[in-house]
């Protein structure tokens, strides 16, 4: 405690202490922006009767808030394998900022369109909305590229001793997850059976699976996107387990996990493209 807090004089003008903008603060505040919007979105889900594709207009914003917050939290946690100086290099900080800024833009546009009661993805109804959808594509590619480059930086860094599995899980999850997301989400955004995530089946979200909302009557391109994107959580978690239980040959474990994960993505991708649901409910 300084003397200044004891007397009641004005502090000197330069007393403000600035916290530097670090990779950690960028990722955590980016996550906080998403989560701060969740409570009113939940109220919207409860009290707003407006529907889009036969479900609440607020379902999509809620899912995006959770997934983008999780993505930012994942990057924050995985970057802990780098020493602080490397983590705060200009390059990593720029990658983190790009992901956080793109996530913020995505949620703002998605929520703006939900508040207006219209679609965000696939909506090219007006010139402005067409531009908005295009910018969302730019934002999505930015998020994926940022995660990929962060994965690359982790790969190049020295392996922390005793954390071989975590280290390899981190970079392989980020890099493989990004590449597979780019492929699956690319097809998803273009639309395979007209605009939308459906391939055949009933073009409505009303009868979707609980939580995910995936189609139960036809193919749904969001399924492989989900499994591709969440490789960036699954592989690091596998690595963490491998290190925790000191399993031998961590590289083999991670490589096997990556193979299984990729297989799931490929199978669900082909399944969706062929117009079949992941789970058919009758």
């Amino acid at each position, binding site marked *: 405690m300084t003397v200044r807090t004891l007397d*009641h*004089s*004005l*502090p000197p003008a330069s007393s403000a202490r600035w916290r530097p903008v670090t990779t950690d603060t960028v990722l955590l505040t980016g996550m906080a922006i998403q989560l701060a*919007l969740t*409570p*009113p*979105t939940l*109220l*919207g889900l409860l*009290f*707003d009767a407006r529907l889009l594709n036969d479900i609440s207009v*607020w379902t999509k914003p809620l899912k995006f808030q959770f997934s983008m917050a999780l993505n930012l939290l994942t990057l924050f946690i995985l970057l802990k394998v780098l020493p602080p100086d490397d983590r705060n290099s200009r390059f990593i900080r720029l990658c983190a900022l790009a992901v956080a800024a793109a996530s913020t833009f995505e949620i703002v546009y998605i*929520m703006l369109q*939900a*508040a*207006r*009661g219209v679609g965000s993805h696939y909506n090219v109804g007006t010139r402005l909305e067409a531009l908005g959808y295009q910018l969302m594509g730019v934002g999505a590619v930015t998020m994926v590229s940022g995660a990929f480059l962060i994965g690359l930086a982790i790969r190049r860094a020295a392996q922390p001793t005793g954390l071989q599995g975590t280290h390899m899980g981190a970079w392989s999850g980020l890099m493989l997850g990004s590449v597979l997301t780019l492929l699956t989400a690319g097809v998803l955004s273009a639309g395979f059976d007209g605009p939308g995530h459906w391939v055949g089946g009933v073009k409505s979200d009303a009868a979707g699976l609980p939580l995910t909302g995936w189609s139960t009557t036809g193919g749904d391109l969001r399924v492989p996107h989900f499994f591709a994107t969440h490789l960036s959580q699954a592989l690091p978690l596998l690595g963490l387990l491998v290190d925790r239980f000191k399993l031998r040959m961590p590289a083999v474990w991670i490589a096997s996990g990556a193979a299984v994960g990729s297989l799931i993505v490929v199978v669900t991708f082909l399944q969706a493209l062929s117009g079949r649901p992941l789970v058919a409910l009758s």
Partner: protein
Amino acid sequence: MPFEQIFGAANAIALASWLCLIMLPRWPWLMAAIRHVIIGALAIAYAALVMIFFFRVEDGGFGSIAQVRALFMSDPVLVAGWLHYLAFDLFVGLWIAGKSAEIGLSRILQAPILLGTFMFGPLGLLMFMGCQATMLVAQRQTENAT
């Protein structure tokens, strides 16, 4: 939806917070509760009302008196606007209470300033900025004299 009830409840909560801010000691937990719980709840309610109802108002907007009037013709958006006042005024009240200690402003003199902020927002803020500016000048004078 019961907008009248939301309006009444928000008013009561804001009034209670202002009374605490004016009358009670500045316990850190009390300040934190007003800041994060009360103002947080007002912000969430405001956000939800705006998200659900703002774009339903035909010809609503911020660009002209007619557009703003159209917004206020909608009960839920009117309540949202009122919550906006309540939340921001209370936030400014907290800021004044915090900054008052820095310039040694008596609690007796804080009371009318806070009351002015509660009733007419910027009017109370103006009074406080006057105090701040005066104390800054006085501080400089003292520093120059020594």
